[in-house]
């Protein structure tokens, strides 16, 4: 396994939209292993998305199992993921391996249903809530060229941005 170099903002490549995965082959399995190794090499990281390692395909990994006593699904390998349902709004702090030395407050859906293919191309659905749901939303944003910086709100006031 290899640990990839993680792209860091202001690298413009982080702002591009990734393409769907079409081949569920050995190269994908190998990439998933290396992507997971890269996530685990990052200090405290509970998720990673393929574009963070200069690979612009719709692949993300989320694993919040290191956090005690929260609802979670173990290691989620999400290929071509999409959020098909969401509910609630909750604020929380986020950071990112691609944005060192900055954390910010971000409003996310409290719960999401994510539909994705697994490493073999099988369609799966996961109902995620709280911290895991936050991680899923953060990683899926990367696939659309969005960073948490695009969603950060002022921590000083308990205000939600007006819906546009």
């Amino acid at each position, binding site marked *: 396994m290899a640990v990839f170099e993680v792209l860091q903002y202001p690298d413009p490549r982080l702002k591009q939209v990734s393409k769907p995965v079409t081949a569920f082959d050995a190269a994908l399995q190998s990439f998933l292993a290396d992507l997971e190794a890269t996530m685990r090499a990052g200090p*405290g990281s*509970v998720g990673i998305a393929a574009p963070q390692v200069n690979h612009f395909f719709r692949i993300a990994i989320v694993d919040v199992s290191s956090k005690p006593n929260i609802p979670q699904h173990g290691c989620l390998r999400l290929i071509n993921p999409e959020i098909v349902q969401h509910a609630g709004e909750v604020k*929380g702090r*986020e950071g*990112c*391996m691609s944005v060192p030395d900055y*954390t910010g407050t971000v409003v996310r859906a409290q719960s999401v249903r994510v539909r994705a293919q697994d490493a073999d191309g099988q369609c799966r659905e996961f109902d995620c809530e709280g911290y895991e749901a936050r*991680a899923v939303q953060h990683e899926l944003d990367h696939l659309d060229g969005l960073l948490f910086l695009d969603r950060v709100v002022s*921590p000083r006031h308990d205000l939600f941005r007006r819906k546009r």
Partner: protein
Amino acid sequence: MAEPMKSDNQWHMLTVIGADRPGIVARLTEALFRGGCNLGEASMVRLGGNFSIMLMVQGADAAALERLVRPVTDALGLRLHLDPIHGELHQHIEPNVQVTVYGADRPGIVAQATAALAAAGLNILDLNTDVGGTAERPIYIMLIDGHAVEGVAAVERAIAPLRAGGVEVRVSALDTMIG
């Protein structure tokens, strides 16, 4: 931000306070930019309707900085203050606890709360307070983000006695999601 044009890398903390009006930040930073200065981290807040800003500035010595900013502050009736500082960028400490204290306003809330927090090993990283409610029945609200060296439970134990004094206290763990 870009490296400053001048060779003087000493950081200063520029503090400006006074009556608020629109455009103060724009005029201050325009003067600094034209003078070849580089800005670091900053915090501007209105306190009781007063403008206040603390702004890290690099690229000129104290006398030169004052020459750049003084015309603006004099024109706007603001007071300015400059201190040389050590500019510690890229070394943020991540808060792991948030403390909210509120109640009917009375003297001593901040002193009592922060004494308890300090004793519990809390390093306050961000603190802001507001006076809300009405003039007749003011309420005091304090929000603190901090790093609890001895853990969140120690903070909760230390600050719990304040509840007997009639203030509401909420301690919650902050767990930053790194993705």
